[in-house]
């Protein structure tokens, strides 16, 4: 029974059902606040998809992700509030700025491996925070940026209201997931996975490590910038706290709970945890008392998160249903399974 439920989730229909649910959600919600929470969960999910590219697929733990989120938010905020740009040009500029800065940081940081890369990006994230906090002439320092322009609609839609904005964010989220699914099936996505599984082996296959890693990094920072810009357009007020390292840790938690290196994981993890923290208000301040040990337990016992665990379980189930399979075939199943997991 459960197995059938599982195979149901695997089908493309499940994705359609999730999309349909997201589309009707504003009508099911009992108040506007719930729509707002869902929209913010989607914004974070977009950022987590970005983190998934560099950390989940490419295997490099990027601890500056929250910093790039803040850069996206600040670019949009400063251009609209101080420079007087309107929303959409500033939005495009935010994407370009995060991509460009991602390229610069990536070129330097990706020469480092594993621990060095994680520590380096931790420092980069902190430099971003300090610059935002101290460079008062540009960023207004701790006061933050007010009066950020809201996205104006094209024609009849007004994105300043919660529900239209929700659909705007949803559209970007669907686009992000669609792009991810194309990416994970493409040669580029497979190259990222090859690098994660062993960069020396990947290199011996003729993969240009640096170029591909930088590519993954730029893609991930652009996702972060996209999420940051949407966030700035949604809350209309931002401060240096957006660059706090805690946000990066939050995103890592979302990613791990949902399933690192999977396609549906970031969405499930983000939406799930955002709603759990919302429904248990007291958790807001002390959520880390639960998240911290949760992270540890996840990496020890369920390193692939909800989605990954579910897929592994399905795989075992499938094998026990068809025990007559020859060993040779099970090898094929194994590779297939890996493919499925990377695309799930």
């Amino acid at each position, binding site marked *: 029974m459960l197995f059938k439920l599982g195979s149901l989730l695997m089908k493309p229909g499940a994705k359609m059902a999730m999309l349909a649910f997201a589309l009707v959600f504003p009508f099911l919600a009992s108040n506007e606040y719930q729509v707002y929470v869902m929209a913010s969960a989607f914004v974070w999910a977009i950022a987590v998809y970005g983190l998934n590219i560099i950390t989940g697929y490419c295997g490099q733990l990027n601890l500056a992700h929250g910093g790039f989120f803040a850069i996206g938010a600040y670019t949009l905020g400063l251009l609209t509030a101080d420079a007087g740009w309107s929303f959409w040009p500033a939005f495009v500029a935010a994407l370009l700025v995060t991509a460009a800065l991602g390229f610069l940081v990536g070129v330097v940081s990706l*020469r*480092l491996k594993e621990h*060095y890369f994680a*520590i380096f990006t931790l*420092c980069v994230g902190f430099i971003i925070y300090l610059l935002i906090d101290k460079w008062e002439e540009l960023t207004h320092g701790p006061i933050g940026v007010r009066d950020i322009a809201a996205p104006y609609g094209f024609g009849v839609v007004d994105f300043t209201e919660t529900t239209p904005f929700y659909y705007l964010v949803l559209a970007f989220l669907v686009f992000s997931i669609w792009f991810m699914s194309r990416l994970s099936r493409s040669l580029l996505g497979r190259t990222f996975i090859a690098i994660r599984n062993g960069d020396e082996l990947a290199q011996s296959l003729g993969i240009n490590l640096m170029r591909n890693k930088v590519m993954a990094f730029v893609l991930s920072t652009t996702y972060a910038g996209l999420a940051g810009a949407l966030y700035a357009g949604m809350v209309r007020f931002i401060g240096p706290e957006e660059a706090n390292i805690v946000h990066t840790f939050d995103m890592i938690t979302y990613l791990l709970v949902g399933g690192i290196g999977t396609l549906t994981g970031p969405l499930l993890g983000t939406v799930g945890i955002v709603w759990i923290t919302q429904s248990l208000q007291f958790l807001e301040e002390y959520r880390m008392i639960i998240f911290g040990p949760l992270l*540890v337990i996840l990496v020890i016992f369920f390193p692939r998160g909800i989605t990954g665990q579910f897929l592994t379980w399905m795989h075992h189930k499938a094998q026990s249903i068809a025990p007559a399979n020859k060993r040779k075939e099970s090898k094929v199943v194994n590779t297939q399974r890996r493919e499925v997991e990377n695309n799930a």
Partner: protein
Amino acid sequence: MNLFFQQIINGLTLGSIYGLVALGLTLVYGILHVPNFAHGALYMVGAFMSYFFMVDLGVHYWVAMAGSAGVIAVLAILCERLVFHPLRNSPPIHDKIAAIGILLFLEAVVQMFWGSDFRRMTSPFTGIMNFDGLIIPEQRLLIIVAAFVLVFVLQMFLRKTMTGATIIAMAQSREGAFLVGIDANRVAMMTFAISGALAAIAATLYAPINLVYPAMGHLVIMKAFVIIILGGMGSIPGAIVGGMIIGFAEAFGGFYISTAYKDIIAFGLLVLILSARPQGLFAKGAH
């Protein structure tokens, strides 16, 4: 000229604290090859433990420091047993994420008990020494002296005792250490205990001239990481020299360049150095 010497004292003080924290970090890295992101949280809990012992139990500064070192050593051993030991065969990214999990947990627990207020910790060494215009607060002198004594004792322990030698042996070659019958678990626990105790002592020494608050470990741990990258990850002399470099760079940079940006100096230095030499300044070879 006096101002210049004043900066030397400041640099020595900062360098001593950073060096002590970095020493613990580098010891753990040498043994387990884990960048322990939770080390800063141990430092912070160490300061709160001393604060708790001094304010709530009313014990003397030195007793509080010893008690805090003991508590944090046990806490560090628990981290090793419960978290890093089960993960010893996992991909490296898992250790890092688990360490972040510990960090988040400890910070949240401290925040729950003590709140996020800034607290002032008193110390019996409030006097000021005046050497012909050169002013040295006693606490700063204590920090410098204590750091030098601790480094010396640690060196003696590692070089002259059998137990200390097992740590060095493990750091040099894991397999080799197993071959001569060294118990990996014991060494790992001992290393974590030493590293935790060093962090707690550093925090207790520094807290009276700084403040005690839940986020106090963030900057220190990041600077300690910068230091061990500078000094080569796993290298003990590297941690001390690196600590002094960062301490002096901050003291002089903060004084002659800009106070607001003094915290960026260490990270800027790291970016510069790693851009030129991705393996760090003194590293012998990449792991």
